[in-house]
C-alpha cells in the first residue's frame, strides 16, 4: 500500500464517549500532520450519518469511517483500539447499532487506492483470530508493528 502510517496515527486503549469523538480525534491527528483538510473529521461524521461504516465482524465489530477524496492531501490510515466499544451503525442495516472495538479511519486520495486499502483490510475482517491478535496488543508499539506486518504498511 502507498498509505502513510506512523505511531501518532494510532490511538491506543482509547476511552471515548462516542463514535464522533473517535473520528474527531483521528481526523485531528491526520490534520496535524498535513494528511487531511481541517474539516475532514466533520465531513467523515456527516458521511457516517448517511452511509454508516460499522461492520459486524467476529468476535468484535469494527468500523472504517472516511470522507471523500477532496479533503485528503496525502493518503493515510488512522487506527483506534478502544478500551470500551463505541456505537457505529451497521453499514448493511443503518438502523442497527454495533459495539465497535477497533476503528480504521481511511483517508485516500484516489478511489482506486481506497479499494485496494479495503481489499487489504477485508482479508483481516474475515479472520477472527487476527482481529483478536490486534485487540490484545498490550502496547501502542505492538499495535503499530502488528499493523505494519499484517497490512504491509511502510
Amino acid at each position, binding site marked *: 500500500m502507498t498509505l502513510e502510517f506512523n505511531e501518532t496515527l494510532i490511538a491506543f486503549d482509547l476511552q471515548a464517549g462516542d463514535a464522533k469523538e473517535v473520528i474527531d480525534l483521528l481526523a485531528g491527528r491526520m490534520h496535524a500532520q498535513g494528511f487531511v483538510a481541517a474539516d475532514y473529521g466533520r465531513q467523515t461524521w456527516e458521511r457516517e450519518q448517511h452511509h454508516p461504516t460499522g*461492520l459486524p465482524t467476529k468476535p468484535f465489530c469494527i468500523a472504517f469511517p*472516511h470522507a471523500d477524496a477532496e479533503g485528503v492531501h496525502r493518503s493515510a490510515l488512522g487506527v483506534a483500539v478502544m478500551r470500551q466499544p463505541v456505537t457505529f451503525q451497521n453499514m*448493511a442495516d443503518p438502523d442497527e447499532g454495533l459495539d465497535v472495538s477497533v476503528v480504521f479511519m481511511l483517508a485516500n486520495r484516489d478511489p482506486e487506492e481506497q479499494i485496494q486499502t*479495503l481489499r487489504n483490510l*477485508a482479508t483481516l475482517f474475515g479472520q477472527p483470530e487476527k482481529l483478536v491478535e490486534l485487540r490484545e496488543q498490550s502496547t501502542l508499539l505492538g499495535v503499530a508493528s502488528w499493523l505494519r506486518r499484517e497490512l504491509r504498511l511502510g
Partner: protein
Amino acid sequence: MGKLIVVACGAGINTSTIAEDSIRERIAQEGFADVEVKRILMADIEGYLTRTDLVLIVSMMKIFRTFDVPVIQGMPFLIGSQEEKNVLLNKIVDVVNSK
C-alpha cells in the same frame, strides 16, 4: 443470451468491489463465458430489474423488499471466513446453472 449478476452496495466506498472480485474469480474458474458481473449502487437497482438477462442480485445491504430474481446477502464476502464465502459462491454457481 448472456446472464447478468448485479452486485449492489449502499454508497461510494465500493464494498461491492470485494464481492465482485470473489465472484469474478469463481466465474472464471467455472468457465462461464456468458456471465456479466456488474457493480451498482442499490439506489440504481430499478433500472436493472427490467433487464431480461438479470439472473441474480448480490446485495451488500440488508434487503427489505422482494425481487423476481434470487437475492444473496453479500456481507460475508467482506467479513466472512473462506468457508462462508465458498457457500455463497456455490449458491451463485447454482443460480447461474439453473437459468
